[in-house]
């Protein structure tokens, strides 16, 4: 493959300065390239190797720098600082030791525990770092002063202040440590690690403890206070945390926002007064002024928490619920071991007070579109230039470690599990870190889906030369299992490719003969064929994947390959480790506004070249100082340049208005139908439980609105004795009865809110109102939300039948299984779309929970969420008692929904190297301009897809980069930018393109495209297009290997799952025909395809089947002290099901356990708790907790699977003979059904099409 590499090489090396020479060649080296790639691609990489102890290689290494930090402060504290440093260190690193040392606590921390194993080495590193402190410090100090000499005074200020700020012993990484020296924020505070860890102790002692240092133990406080005993410093008073919190919350706002809230407060107060009068006298002026409708303020009987008495037009005789005040104090800190409990506080760790972003008048430079901020890279502000970078774990995710163990090696840390560290000589300098990590891996790795790909790739037996092995090792693994075939086909494949070590992914597979294409282990993302350094720096495939990991050079080549080119994004994923950077100047390219990233090249110390538009930019003064190594003049070692996933704390330049508070509005259907279904009980219960965990700060506001044929508002103004219901029956022209007291501060009105939540489920029990005025209710919600923006959660149980946006039933039940035309996949009216766009404009997202038993036209209703960046949940045939599994699912989903992280007023921009262009976006958002996605809310479960085209030939470059920048307001009122950068090689030969196909990403992109096609054209069109995609790509591949026989269906190994997945798509609910599918189910499946991230979508498309009656510990992994067995994947065919076995099918949102007729009675007894097969109940949704080994294994396996996803799946136990088994069998996609091909038939069909 030297030929293709030849052409880019001269150009690239000409462009890149000699120091970095060789980059072009290595990058362009084809996968089959025999020679090991030159080690350096660019500046950062090189330097990384020179300073091997740096943090760049392994997340563990971060510890070392933190040790250094611990040093500085003593010297520097006296320096005036006016900006706040947030250093995110080691909370997690240190806690782990705790857990490891005292494993008895582990049980309490299932989430956090898991990652600890991996971070185990940290303390050692720290220890050694401490040992070397004096020298290090002095040297760094010298360094600083040297820089002082070299540069003008502003620089001095900058350097000094940043040194000082860095110096604080930020041992608790995510407990953002705030260091403020100005009068307004006199408290220098940082949080202690959950104390008692030796590391923390050392840290404290090794430095001159600053005088005022209250420890905040925020996010861990609930969980870890029990453990945080031997801390040398007193545990923090909790209220201090809050105080600090609020300070920080408002500090950024004080200059601009304070006016608004205060006036609002006044208004609110005024209103309270007037309302009070209104209550006493229904004909009061207030009521009069609003009397155009039948709005009534109601005289409440004191005993009842919520009272409504409709005085006029009182057609609805509504008896208010009795005052049920269940003494249910929303558990504040009462459930320390509860996994989710911490979520609400999670932002605690982000307390990066931004005193530094101080009083710039908002009007001067403001735009919420990220790219328009003023650029001050060059001019360093003399007084307040400080920067800190802190690759710290963010505690939110840390706490969730259990549920997202896969994120361990996320983003920046992705190199860690990479095999490279072990085999790569360059990593030798950091021996302490990688070794333990290796040891810890089997314990720390919960989630095999992607990361183990790296991990296992470590030592593929008999892998090729080291340079090539990591790339293809994923495939080699299972290649090993079919040695016969492997040899055979590699013999065949050798003919087509000249180079000796043929990449595994190009091994031709004869699909019609190879019956076992499905590997027994989960399929992992292919690793781009980059050199080791770049690969280590590259973005985690969990967040960012491309369908082709080798980008074809020209559109013509892409057309020849007949493969879709696009990106799959999961930008706001819960991450366990995320470097957060506070810096006055966020370094970006001047022309294309790209954020500086690991793939830029430094021309010299002072200039860098953008990797997207190739413009040469200056390195700002501030950037010259590296806060991690506390050294000057090494811009390429900054965390921005060392991590491909970073988060910046944005300054006021990135704000159009002060960051909004978290605002939540619940719009609830209370018509007869809804009350029948009984969802209110579950919702109110969940809300009560999670009220304190709602992400937000002291400004968080909440409101409720219910509707049937009228709209009911709830006045929850602080000071009222009970919530008041205000009824507006004028649904043609909705208005807000009181503008200010409907959305109230969560903390101030908590009692009232609890009263309301306790009363709501019973308030409407006797309603006879069957109509649903959803449209007007949404309009009201929009009016309510438009001043601030926020999140609207709509619960709807039937077809809206009144007012604007009413819908008719469009489904013809007789057509459900039609093979011909499926109609009505698109919306019936543009009302919801318009509303969504209005909401999007006001930064409001609408989340839809549809809990209906009959057709509710989800196709139309979904629009309200689709275009406002909301999310859609659908619970078909929901009933709280008749359908307990759905009820349980709702409950669990709600818990996740209410407590998960949320970002407000977000925009996402995707940039790519010049020559590539994006043309179609998939997901829930509104495309505001060509590459700017407007997301009113962003949640961690949202995925996106982008289609790309190659507009200009990429011949003069060897690498292309993609960058997503997500600018959002955190629930703590901070403006943040999360940046992911992905770098991929450019190739010029068709074989290389095929070698780099990421089949899962390609399938997900195709699924997205097919959804579009079926809505805009027709379902059959979409199905044809899917089949054609396989036919085209395989025939294109066939023509490249012309010397092979054409009778066989040959696919490259990288594409061997392609036909299987496409068949799975064709049998997916969204696209299947011939099988009875309700329209809403189909539309919901389409919505999910559009907005699920890849990992979850793949499970939906191609479920995983495991045999669970013979679970063994062989190959098991350890998660949180539990042994999780790893049974091999079975292919989805009835032939694999034996009557003697029990099988678990993981379909993403639902689990099925199929019990064979003659299944071993021991298993049934041990796991299901039933004496024999006959006695297994028909509806079983739980595995009993039995104290047997097999039960334990089965349960731990299922729990482990469950923990890996945001929506908790429902478990169904399906007996072999029960009617429910059709549900199970329809997922066996390799089998023939009445209406669809079996896998083999499908292959023959494809072959036929190819030969045609």
């Amino acid at each position, binding site marked *: 493959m030297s030929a293709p590499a030849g052409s880019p090489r001269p150009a690239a090396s000409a462009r890149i300065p000699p120091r970095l020479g060789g980059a072009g060649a290595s990058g362009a080296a084809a996968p089959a390239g025999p020679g090991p790639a030159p080690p350096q691609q660019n500046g950062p990489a090189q330097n990384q190797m020179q300073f091997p102890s740096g943090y760049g290689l392994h997340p563990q290494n971060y510890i070392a720098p933190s040790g250094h930090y611990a040093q500085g402060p003593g010297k520097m504290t006296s320096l005036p600082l006016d900006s706040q440093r947030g250093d995110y260190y080691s909370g997690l690193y240190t806690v782990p030791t705790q857990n490891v040392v005292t494993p008895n606590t582990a049980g309490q921390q299932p989430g956090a525990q898991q990652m600890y194993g991996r971070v185990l080495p940290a303390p050692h590193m720290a220890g050694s770092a401490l040992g070397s402190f004096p020298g290090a410090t002095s040297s760094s100090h010298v360094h600083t002063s040297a820089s002082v000499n070299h540069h003008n005074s502003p620089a001095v200020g900058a350097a000094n202040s940043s040194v000082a700020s860095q110096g604080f012993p930020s041992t608790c990484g995510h407990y953002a440590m705030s260091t403020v020296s100005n009068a307004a924020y006199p408290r220098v505070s940082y949080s202690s690690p959950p104390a008692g860890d030796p590391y923390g102790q050392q840290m404290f002692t090794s430095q001159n403890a600053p005088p005022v240092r209250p420890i905040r133990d925020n996010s861990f406080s609930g969980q870890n206070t029990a453990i945080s005993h031997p801390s040398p410093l007193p545990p923090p008073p909790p209220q201090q945390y809050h105080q600090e919190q609020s300070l920080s919350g408002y500090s950024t706002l004080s200059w601009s926002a304070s006016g608004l809230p205060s006036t609002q407060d006044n208004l609110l107060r005024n209103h309270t007064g007037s309302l009070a009068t209104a209550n006493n006298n229904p004909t009061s002026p207030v009521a009069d002024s609003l009397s155009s409708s039948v709005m009534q303020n109601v005289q409440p009987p004191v005993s009842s928490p919520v009272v409504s008495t409709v005085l006029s037009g009182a057609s609805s005789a509504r008896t208010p619920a009795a005052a049920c005040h269940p003494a249910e104090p929303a558990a504040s800190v009462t459930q320390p071991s509860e996994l989710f409990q911490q979520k609400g506080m999670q932002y605690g760790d982000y307390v990066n007070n931004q005193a530094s972003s101080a009083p710039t008048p908002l009007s001067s430079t403001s735009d919420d579109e990220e790219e328009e901020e003023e650029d001050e890279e060059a001019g360093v502000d003399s007084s307040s230039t400080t920067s800190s970078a802190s690759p710290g774990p963010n505690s939110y995710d840390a706490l969730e470690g259990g549920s997202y163990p896969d994120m361990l090696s996320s983003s920046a840390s992705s190199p860690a599990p990479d095999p490279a560290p072990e085999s790569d000589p360059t990593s030798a300098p950091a021996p302490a870190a990688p070794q333990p990590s290796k040891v810890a891996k089997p314990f720390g790795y919960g989630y095999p889906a992607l990361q183990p790909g790296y991990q296992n790739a470590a030592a593929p037996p008999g892998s090729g030369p080291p340079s090539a092995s990591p790339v293809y090792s994923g495939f080699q693994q299972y290649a090993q299992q079919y040695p016969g075939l492997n040899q055979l086909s590699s013999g065949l494949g050798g003919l087509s490719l000249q180079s000796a070590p043929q990449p595994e992914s190009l091994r031709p597979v004869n699909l019609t003969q190879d019956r076992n294409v499905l590997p027994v282990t989960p399929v992992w993302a292919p690793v781009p064929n980059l050199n080791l350094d770049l690969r280590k720096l590259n973005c985690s495939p969990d967040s960012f994947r491309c369908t082709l990991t080798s980008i074809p050079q020209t559109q013509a080549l892409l057309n020849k390959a007949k493969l879709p080119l696009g990106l799959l994004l999961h930008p706001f994923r819960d991450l366990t480790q995320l470097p957060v950077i506070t810096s006055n100047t966020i370094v970006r390219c001047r022309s294309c506004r790209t954020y500086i990233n690991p793939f830029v090249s430094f021309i010299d110390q002072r200039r860098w070249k953008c990797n997207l538009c190739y413009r040469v930019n200056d390195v700002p003064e501030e950037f010259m100082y590296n806060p991690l190594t506390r050294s000057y003049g090494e811009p390429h070692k900054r965390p921005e340049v060392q991590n491909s996933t970073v988060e910046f704390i944005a300054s006021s330049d990135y704000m159009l208005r002060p960051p909004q508070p978290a605002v939540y509005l619940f719009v609830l259907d209370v018509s007869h139908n809804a009350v029948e279904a009984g969802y209110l009980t579950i919702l109110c219960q969940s809300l009560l439980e999670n009220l304190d965990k709602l992400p937000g700060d002291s400004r968080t506001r909440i409101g409720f609105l219910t509707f049937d044929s009228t709209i009911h508002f709830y006045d929850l103004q602080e000071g009222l004795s009970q919530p008041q219901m205000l009824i507006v029956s004028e649904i043609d022209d909705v208005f807000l009865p009181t503008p200010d007291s409907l959305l109230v501060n969560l903390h101030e009105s908590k009692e009232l809110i609890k009263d309301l939540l306790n009363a709501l489920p019973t308030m409407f029990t006797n309603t006879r109102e069957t109509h649903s005025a959803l449209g007007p209710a949404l309009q009201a919600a929009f009016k309510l939300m438009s001043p601030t923006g926020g999140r609207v959660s709509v619960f709807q149980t039937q077809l809206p039948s009144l007012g604007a946006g009413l819908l008719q039933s469009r489904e013809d039940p007789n057509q459900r299984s039609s093979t011909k035309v499926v109609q009505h996949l698109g919306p019936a009216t543009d009302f919801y779309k318009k509303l969504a*766009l209005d909401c999007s404009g006001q930064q409001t997202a609408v989340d839809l929970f549809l809990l209906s038993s009959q057709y509710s036209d989800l196709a139309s209703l979904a629009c309200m969420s689709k275009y406002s960046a909301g999310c859609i949940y659908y619970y078909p045939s929901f009933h709280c008692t008749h359908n307990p599994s759905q009820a349980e699912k709702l409950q669990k989903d709600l818990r996740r929904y209410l407590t998960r992280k949320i970002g407000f007023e977000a925009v996402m921009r995707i940039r790519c190297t010049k020559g590539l262009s994006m043309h179609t976006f998939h997901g829930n958002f509104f495309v505001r301009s060509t590459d700017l996605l407007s997301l009113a809310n962003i949640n961690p479960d949202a995925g996106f897809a982008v289609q790309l085209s190659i507009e200009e030939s990429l011949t003069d470059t060897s690498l292309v980069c993609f960058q997503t920048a997500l600018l959002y307001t955190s629930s703590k009122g901070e403006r943040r930018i999360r940046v992911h950068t992905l770098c991929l090689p450019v190739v010029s030969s068709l074989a290389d393109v095929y070698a780099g196909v990421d089949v899962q990403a390609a399938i997900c992109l195709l699924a997205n495209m097919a959804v579009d096609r079926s809505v805009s054209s027709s379902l059959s069109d979409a199905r044809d297009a899917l089949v054609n995609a396989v036919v085209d790509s395989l025939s294109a591949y066939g023509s490249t290997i012309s010397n092979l026989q054409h009778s066989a269906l040959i696919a490259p190994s990288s594409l061997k799952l392609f036909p299987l997945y496409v068949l799975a798509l064709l049998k997916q609910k969204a696209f299947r025909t011939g099988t009875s599918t309700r329209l809403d189910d189909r539309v919901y499946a389409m919505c999910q395809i559009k907005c699920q991230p890849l990992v979850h979508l793949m499970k939906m498309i191609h479920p995983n089947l495991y045999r669970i009656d013979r679970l063994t510990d062989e190959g098991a992994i350890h998660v949180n002290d539990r042994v999780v067995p790893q049974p091999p994947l079975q292919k989805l065919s009835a032939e694999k099901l034996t009557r003697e076995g029990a099988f678990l099918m993981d379909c993403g949102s639902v689990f099925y356990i199929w019990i064979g007729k003659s299944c071993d009675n021991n298993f049934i007894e041990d796991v299901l708790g039933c004496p024999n097969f006959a006695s297994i109940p028909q509806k079983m949704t739980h595995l009993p907790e039995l104290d047997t080994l097999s039960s334990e294994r089965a349960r731990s396996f299922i729990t482990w699977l469950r923990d890996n996803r945001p929506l908790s799946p429902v478990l169904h136990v399906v007996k072999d003979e029960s009617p429910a088994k059709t549900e199970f069998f329809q997922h066996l996609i390799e089998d023939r059904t009445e209406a669809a091909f079996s896998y083999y038939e499908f292959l023959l069909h494809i072959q036929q099409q190819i030969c045609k």
Partner: protein
Amino acid sequence: MHQNYGFRLFKVDHNSRHAAPRRRGRRAPVSWDQGLSGRVGVRQPVLRKKRRRRRRRRRRMEVVVFVFSLLDCCALIFLSVYFIITLSDLECDYINARSCCSKLNKWVIPELIGHAIVTVLMLISLHWFIFLLNLPVATWNIYRFIMVPSGNMGVFDPTEIHNRGQLKSHMKEAMIKLGFHLLCFFMYLYSMILALIND
């Protein structure tokens, strides 16, 4: 006069319509005088007068038709230019999709009606060539308007305009229409002048 084939065709076509009655009017009396009885000849002056009057009215009508078409065409040209400007604004991110689409959707129906009127007018005034020329474009306009899915906010939908190269195709369409309207403009201008001269 014979600048190009299209115009020549047009001219011939046009003239034939103007010239034919003239020729018939002149020749018919001759043949009638020669071959037919005197009764016919007596009536001839009346007939000729009527015809002349009708002819004159038709010519005047023609002038009116073309003047109207010309104005209408001008409006359509401006509309096309407006479409192009707005779409390219969107392309350059000067305005957002929402406002762009609401701006444009407002003018879709006026454009459709304006064009339909001209087409129908040409049909009524029996200018077959111009009618046939306009017909496809008018049909496309109506088809496009009718085929908008019920959930979309009009021909231009802000949620889809950035997808699948829709913006480009809209742009292309607006360009083609601009060209077409310019062609029509000169055609109407020519016909109008011709009609004025003949009058």
